[in-house]
Structure formats: C-alpha cells, structure tokens
C-alpha cells in the first residue's frame, strides 16, 4: 500500500473540476455548471418549485452531484475530495436553484458540511430566502440511538435524495417537503463494512489500513473507525452482523414495509452484494419484515474502497409514493413503479 494507487486522471489537483465538467456533459443537457464554481444545477427549473439543494465532498461519486436531475436534486454544491464545499459555492448554487418557494438543504451529517452549509444558510437567510436543513444521520455505527445528531450520513443519502427529490417535485410548500424529509430520515438506518481502503488521488495514500484477512464492521465513508475490526467472515455472518445492529435500532418490527439498499463503497463485486442480499432477505422474512423495493448498486463510494453498506428505511404510503416515482440523473435513474 506504500505507493500511490493507480488512477486514470490528469492532474489530481484538477480532478474535481474536470470530473464536474464530465458529469455535466454526461447529463446530456439536463444540467449545467455554474461558471467558475464547483456547483451543478438543473436546467429548466419551473418557477414556484420548492428547491432541493444537495452536496458534500467529492470523491464519493455518483453521490452527490450525480444525483442532480429529474425528481432528484435541483442543484449540488461540490467540495474537494472528502471535504465539505465552501460556503460561497453553496450560496451560489442555492441562489441558482431558488424559485421563490425556499430551499431545502439535504446533506450528510459531518462537522465540515454542517458548518459550511450553515454559513451559507445564514447568508441566504439574511437576504430573506427561506432555508431549511435536513441532515442525513443513518449510520447506526456512529453513535448510540439517543445521540442520532452525532450519526454520520452514509448510503441513506440515496433514499433520502430519491424521496425528497420526488416530494420537492410533487409538493408545493417548503414546509411539506421538509416534513417528508424529516419523516424519511427518522425512519432510515444503515451500517457498512470495510474490506479495503480507498485513497485520495492528491495524496495517493489509503485512508486506513486493514490486514489481508481483516474487515471492519461499521466503518464510516471516509474510513472513520467502526465498531469492530475482525477476521474476514462469510457473507451470511456479515449480513447478520449488520442486521443485528440495524434492525433493533429503529426498531424494525414484524409487518413493517421497508426499502432496502445495498450500496457498494467502490471495489466490491455485485456478486458479493447479491449473495449478501440473499441472507438479508432470509432474515427479514423470518422477522416478518416485507421489502417493498430493493436497490443494489454503486452510489455512495469512497474512491476504490472495497466494502458495502446496508440501508433499511421503514415506509408508509406517502414515502412509498415518492420512492416509486420515476427519476433520472447521471448517477441514478429509475423507471418508476411499472
């Protein structure tokens, strides 16, 4: 792990800005970049639409900036690698998506993001723009249930942006959109497992070290320490270990309808995630928990980190409605309930 990880980039210090250009081009006209800024916004935003602004550090593609699109985020403020975006980027992105109905800020709960988004929110509120903030706090490994405000946002972001984006398209008051987002975040729980580290191109250094026969359960999306570093275990055991923490936390109970996300942190194979899904479904079935929708894919990554996380959200009729709506962006497109 001594030498820098091989990556196909140009100047690593230009990677974020070049990535944003590539992302806007990949959206085939759906989005644009704010001139000179690391911010992406949707074209053709209707007047009077409640705006949804997402964002966070780069290096986790396709989240967040890859989730700007139809029935998803209206704009995204992008930071550098694993670093929250600066306040003026958030401020400009917010101004660009505002259509008179106020803006919901939706992002993962990290000190850096909280402070930078708050600074921007204060600037915008000074101008009389209505700003609400919902922070994603789905990582049960990060803090005990009584301290959810200390919990990180991980792959719960995928369901949060999907549902809040649909709500922001369908509902016409910021209060209502905020209410839906708060309900969703209150009902989502996740936990991940790390198998090998990712690295920041500029330093080329893996953000943590794991032995050849070790995994770490509960590790955060930046390699923040988890709950237990243990020997490599079979998929069924890992699936059970994650559910043992996730299910009691809400708790998820018999008869609940849920959405399930298995998110690839980067280099894990889909085969592994599907084998894990097999065991997860067996356990959920035993518990009488019914899965309404499953998503298995690569959305919140940590560069080439290997590992995955499991996210479960308890649904009601309203959350199901927004979850089942179609959506489209470079990073996430769904046909919607057929």
């Amino acid at each position: 792990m001594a030498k820098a990880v091989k990556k196909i980039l140009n100047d690593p210090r230009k990677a974020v800005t070049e990535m944003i250009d590539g992302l806007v081009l990949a959206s085939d006209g759906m989005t644009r970049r704010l001139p000179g800024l690391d911010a992406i916004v949707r074209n053709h935003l209707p007047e009077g639409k409640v705006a949804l602004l997402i964002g966070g550090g780069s290096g986790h593609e396709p989240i967040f900036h890859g989730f700007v699109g139809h029935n998803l985020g209206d704009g995204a403020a992008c930071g550098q690698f694993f670093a929250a975006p600066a306040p003026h980027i958030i401020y400009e992105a917010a101004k660009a998506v505002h259509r008179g109905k106020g803006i919901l800020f939706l992002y993962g709960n990290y000190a850096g993001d909280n402070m930078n988004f708050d600074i921007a929110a204060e600037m915008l509120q000074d101008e009389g723009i209505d700003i609400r903030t919902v922070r994603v706090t789905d990582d049960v490994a990060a803090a005990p249930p009584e301290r959810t405000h200390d919990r990180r946002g991980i792959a719960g972001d995928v369901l949060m942006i999907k549902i809040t984006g649909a709500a922001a398209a369908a509902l016409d008051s910021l209060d209502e959109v905020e209410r839906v987002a708060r309900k969703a975040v209150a009902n989502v729980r996740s936990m991940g497992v790390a198998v090998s580290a990712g690295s920041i191109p500029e330093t080329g250094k893996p953000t943590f070290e794991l032995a050849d026969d070790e995994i770490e359960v509960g590790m955060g999306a930046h390699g923040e320490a988890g709950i237990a570093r243990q020997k490599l275990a079979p998929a069924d055991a890992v699936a059970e270990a994650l559910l043992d923490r996730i299910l009691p936390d809400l708790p998820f109970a018999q008869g609940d309808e849920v959405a399930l996300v298995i998110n690839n942190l980067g280099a894990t194979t889909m085969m592994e995630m599907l084998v894990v899904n097999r065991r997860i479904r067996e356990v959920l079935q035993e518990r009488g928990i019914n899965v309404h929708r499953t998503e298995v894919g690569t959305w919140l990554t940590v560069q080439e980190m290997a590992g995955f996380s499991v996210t479960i959200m308890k649904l009601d009729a309203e959350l199901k409605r927004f979850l089942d709506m179609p959506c489209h962006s470079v990073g996430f497109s769904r046909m919607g309930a057929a």
Partner: protein
Amino acid sequence: MSDTGLGPEDVVGMLRAVARAVIDRVNVLTDADLAIGDGDHGIGMRRGFEAVLTSLDVGAPTIDAAFRLTGMAILANTGGAAGAVFGTLFTSGAKSLMGADRIDAEGIRRFLAAAQEGVAKRGGVIEGQKTMLDALAHAARATSDAADLTACLKAAAQGAQVGVEATKSMVATTGKARSLGERSLGYPDPGAISVAIILSAMRDYVSSGIDDIGGRNG
C-alpha cells in the same frame, strides 16, 4: 524589537509567512489526519493558504482587512471542517481589530479571544473535545501577561504547542475522529497542529527582528 507593534504592511508580511509555513507542512498535517481523520487536512489547508497568498497580493489597507481577507480566502478555498473553523478564526479575530492601525500584545490578545469565541460558536465545541479550539484556547490563555508583541506571540505559540500535546490525551467527541473514541487517544489533533504552525510562524516573523520589521517601521 519595536514595542510599537506591527503596521498593516508588516501584518500582511506576517500573514504571508504564516501561509508559507502552513503550505510547507502539508504532509505533516495530512499524516496527522490520516491517523485519526480522512487524510485531507494538509491538502485542504494548502488550498486555503495558497489562496491567502494570492488574495494578499492585492495588499491590505488596514490590519483588520488583512486578517479578514485571510479568513475569507481560507473559508472560500479550504472546504471541510478546517475551512469553516480556520476561516472563522481569522474573520472573527479580524472584527476585534477594527480601526486599529497597529497591532501589539494587547491586539494579539483581543484577536485570540475573539477567534476562540468565534470558533467555539461556529463549531459548537468547547475545550476538551480534541479540536483546534484546544490549541487556540491554550494559546489565548498563555498570552495573558506578556509585556510586548514578541513575548506575546512567543507565549501564544508555546501555548498552542501545549494545547497540541493536550489533545493527545483527549478522546475526540466531534469531527471525523469522533468515531474512533478511545482509539483517538495518543494522537494529536490535526487542526490543533495547524494552529501551532500558524502562531509559531507569527512569532518567528516578529522575532526575526529589526532589519526585517523595525526597518520598515523605522
């Protein structure tokens, strides 16, 4: 050295020296963040202080403007937690120097007190949570009875270093290191190290004496 403190030009010179010192230490800071964070503190601070150098090129008419420009450049270019807290350190500190045409020991004390208050508010932290605030608070206290600017910055730099040492025996309760819990023990806080680098660079600039400073003050 001159007890009359520094004028605007010297403050700009001093802040340039600070920026160069931080940029020189990028690897130290990154490695410290690799140990208990996500490994980007060094490159983030470098982004911020490279922008400081550029924004100070335009020069600064007043002392508070020089500190404010520095804070704005950090805030706009560093990102992450550090961008917010180090940007706030300088912008809050700048407010306490409004209208001052020279900065002396008393000015530094005001600056550090205001910076500490601003950071604590922005970060929602108190001392003991293993953050840069610990270095900042130690530095502020250490300056209480320094007679002149040189002594004041010597004390501040030394205090910051004590603060860095103190963070080693703290369990992080905010930021990316929080989830390490007990495992963060023994490691210094990266941001605290940055505070020490900044204050040491200010001390060195001032201590470098007559020709360098007094000259321009002459």
